[in-house]
């Protein structure tokens, strides 16, 4: 009995999901202290050690298994399905979750945070398990339930520092936005239920709907899942939420939870045998717009984690653009375009779930060291946190899409699609190339700023001057992710093998088209050469330094005698030039107090990027709604007697109505 259980990898995966869900429970029951958290991390690592081999073996074998349950609820039977699309999305969950748990041992130890630690550990496990269930669910109600658990665990994970009004605001916006998204999903699954007659998902490629119903399904999915994926303009909840959560939570939210939106979109698209061309076009344009605006807004941020959050919008935009490209390829009968789009998108998705958690972990250890997220207060951390600095560099280079890391390999596929396939029926595809190039360029600006301002130069504040390296529990997960980033850049074939079985689920044409115009070995060769060159160069420089001992002294201050670190370029001043170019899309609020009078007092200049959409459009609109509802609030006055009158009047009205 037990043997046969172990031989079925999908049951092993289910066991791992259960293990993940329960990982935080002992911590709630045990006395507060390290033991519960350590046990939770152990369980998390065990869960992923069970799940990952099973997942990869199932995925490579291309097997599909399904389990139908009669759960006795009024929605009919439900189904869990292990098909390639689900399996691929389980990989990031079981990768980031154990690493985040380990990281929490150093970053959010129960010993120093006894009031929030246990609940954070519990919801961390619950969030991971519910995401796994979202991916495995093959019926509307089950997916919605898991989705709700996911959204609520995310909400509780955002709240540990609820003393701060900013955190509470971010959590509220997150909760509202995520429920607005769920409303879209309700429409989606009700519509599907009406069309197919069952809450079970239709078979892949089996759905053929008349125009109206198909449009409703598509738009509902785009709103419901797109808001979770942070596609513009549904991204408003994302930056504040990811910036204010504890860093290992941000890593999970950004590295994995955003992908649930992409998963949902792909799942719904996979139902359809034929998709109108405008669907692909819409997703493509939305994706490119998100990518461009996301990174443009990221470039002017001065908050370490907010910058990362906006760059998530950019990356998810790129993924969406790839999906749109694949759909266009499918509908115009261009298998190569379909392949490049979808493989690029899924590859980039895996990559993003490696380098974004890595960068959030780095942000966490910088925060741990300095106690601030404000770039303008950092500087010189490279000397104090050398390992974090190195790993941040890896993450930054990877996320900019530069060789030899994995971001390059996946963006390369997208470039190939835009550039190589902009032919007869669709010459406009070529317009994607400059957008992509611009995105890459601005990403480079953003991350040069992020890395340079944080780790180079001289410390701009007392806190930065006394920074200390993160403990091993935090560095180890970062190192694992860094190595995987390098691996993805040198051997993209490893990741593409995982992606290959999924292609048939969404875009059947792409599956038949295996292989690229170039051998993937070139990635390894070029990346290897680059690495060897870089290592050689650094070795040479160090050697020279040893041979010719250099004198060190203060930087030449152009004759100025009393330079201070405050005279350095700050993150804001670095971003100002680009900010002036992009002032059309990103507003910044500057506040200055200019020196006045013959004996001027202290002068200051402040600079704050705005959440334009949220602060200028949505909050005022909600304010109007609030004014409208103020009249309704008069009905709620606390007079019990009048409440009884309401009941009575309703009763009378009903009695009158009956006749």
């Amino acid at each position, binding site marked *: 009995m037990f043997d046969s259980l172990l031989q079925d990898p999908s049951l092993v995966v289910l066991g791992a999901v259960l293990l993940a869900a329960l990982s935080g429970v002992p911590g709630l029951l045990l006395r507060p202290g390290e033991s519960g958290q350590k046990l939770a991390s152990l369980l998390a690592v065990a869960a992923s050690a069970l799940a990952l081999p099973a997942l990869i073996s199932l995925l490579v074998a291309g097997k599909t298994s399904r389990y139908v349950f009669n759960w006795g609820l009024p929605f009919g039977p439900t189904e869990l399905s292990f098909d390639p699309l689900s399996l691929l999305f389980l990989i990031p969950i079981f990768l980031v979750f154990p690493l985040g748990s380990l990281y929490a041992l150093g970053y959010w130890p129960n010993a120093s945070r006894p009031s929030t630690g246990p609940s954070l550990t519990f919801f961390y496990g619950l969030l991971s398990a519910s995401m796994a269930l979202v991916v495995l669910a093959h019926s509307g109600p089950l997916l919605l339930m898991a989705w709700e658990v996911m959204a609520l665990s995310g909400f509780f994970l955002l709240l540990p520092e609820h003393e701060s009004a900013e955190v509470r605001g971010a959590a509220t916006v997150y909760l509202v936005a995520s429920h607005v998204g769920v409303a879209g999903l309700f429409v989606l699954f009700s519509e599907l239920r009406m069309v197919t007659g069952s809450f079970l998902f239709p078979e892949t490629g089996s759905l053929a709907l008349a125009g109206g119903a198909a449009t409703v399904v598509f738009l509902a999915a785009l709103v419901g899942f797109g808001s979770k994926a942070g596609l513009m303009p549904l991204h408003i909840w994302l930056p504040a939420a990811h910036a204010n959560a504890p860093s290992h939570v941000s890593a999970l939210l950004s590295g994995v939870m955003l992908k649930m939106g992409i998963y949902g979109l792909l799942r719904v698209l996979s139902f359809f045998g034929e998709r109108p061309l405008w669907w692909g076009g819409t997703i493509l344009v939305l994706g490119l717009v998100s990518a461009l605006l996301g990174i443009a807004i990221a470039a002017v941020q001065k908050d370490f984690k907010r910058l990362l959050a906006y760059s998530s919008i950019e990356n998810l935009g790129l993924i969406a653009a790839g999906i749109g490209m694949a759909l266009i390829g499918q509908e115009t009968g261009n298998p190569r375009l379909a392949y490049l789009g979808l493989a690029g998108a899924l590859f980039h998705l895996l990559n993003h779930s490696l380098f974004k958690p890595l960068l959030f972990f780095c942000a966490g250890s910088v925060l741990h060291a300095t106690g601030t997220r404000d770039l303008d207060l950092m500087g010189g951390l490279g000397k104090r946190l050398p390992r974090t600095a190195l790993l941040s560099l890896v993450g930054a280079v990877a996320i900019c899409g530069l060789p030899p890391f994995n971001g390059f390999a996946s963006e390369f596929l997208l470039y190939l699609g835009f550039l190589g396939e902009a032919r007869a029926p669709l010459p406009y595809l070529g317009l994607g190339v400059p957008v992509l190039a611009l995105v890459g360029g601005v990403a480079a600006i953003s991350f040069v700023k992020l890395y340079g301002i944080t780790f180079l130069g001289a410390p701009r504040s007392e806190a930065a001057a006394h920074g200390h390296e993160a403990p091993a529990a935090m560095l180890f997960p970062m190192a694992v992710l860094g190595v995987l980033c390098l691996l993805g850049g040198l051997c993209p074939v490893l990741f593409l093998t995982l992606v290959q079985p999924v292609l048939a689920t969404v875009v059947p044409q792409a599956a038949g088209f295996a292989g690229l115009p170039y051998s993937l070995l070139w990635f390894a060769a070029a990346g290897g050469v680059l690495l060897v060159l870089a290592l050689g160069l650094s070795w040479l420089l160090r050697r020279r330094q040893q041979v010719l001992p250099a004198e060190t002294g203060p930087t030449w201050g152009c004759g100025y005698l009393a330079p201070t670190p405050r005279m350095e370029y700050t993150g804001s001043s670095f971003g100002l030039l680009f900010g002036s170019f992009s002032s059309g899309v990103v507003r910044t609020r500057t506040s200055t107090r200019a020196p006045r009078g013959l004996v001027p007092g202290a002068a200051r200049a402040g600079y704050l990027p705005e959440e334009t959409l949220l602060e200028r459009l949505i909050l005022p609109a909600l304010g109007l709604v609030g004014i409208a509802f103020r009249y309704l609030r008069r009905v709620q*006055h*606390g007079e*019990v*007697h009048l409440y009884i009158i309401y009941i009575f009047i309703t*009763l009378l009205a009903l009695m009158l109505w009956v006749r």
Partner: protein
Amino acid sequence: MTALADQLLVLCLLLNFAVLGTSRLAFSVRAVALQGVVLGVLPALVHPFSWHLVAIVAGIILVKGAAIPILIVRAILKADIQREFEPFIGYIPSLVLGAIFTALAFIFASRLPLAPEHEGLLFVPASLATLMCGFLVLMGRRKAISQVIGYLLMENGIFIFGLLLAEAMPVMVEAGALLDLLVGVFVMGIVINHISREFSSLDTSRLSTLREE
């Protein structure tokens, strides 16, 4: 026997007015207790004899006529309140409204799609009228104890309707209704206790300070 039942129901309606028109809490409680006793006797008149029925009648009379009134009288003594001053709806307007609602109840009852064997009986209008009078007491009075009395009136109204529906009343149904009532009074008792402790008064209109701003 229906003639006698109808007369008892008319007595119930009159007792409603007694509750509506008095400011003395002890009198209201006695009126409601009497109404409970009358209602307890009613099943014996409309249903054929059985020991089961005897048990039900005894139980209802005990609970509605004795146990609950004693509880409330104790609360009145404890809180040291004899009268309801300054109700939201005065006594004369209460009586007028009660008369209007009773008339309305008769009109509604005549329009309701009832089973033929129930038409022409006083049960339905009496039930509706008692229910609405209960509402009126709930709406019009300030003291938490008066609210309990209003709640009891409403319960009585529902009970009259139940008499009509259940040919031979299963013990469980009536036990359930009584349990509801007991829990209701219990909760109200707790509420009364807390209101008087927190606000040093039993005036429910002061509860409005509890609403969120």
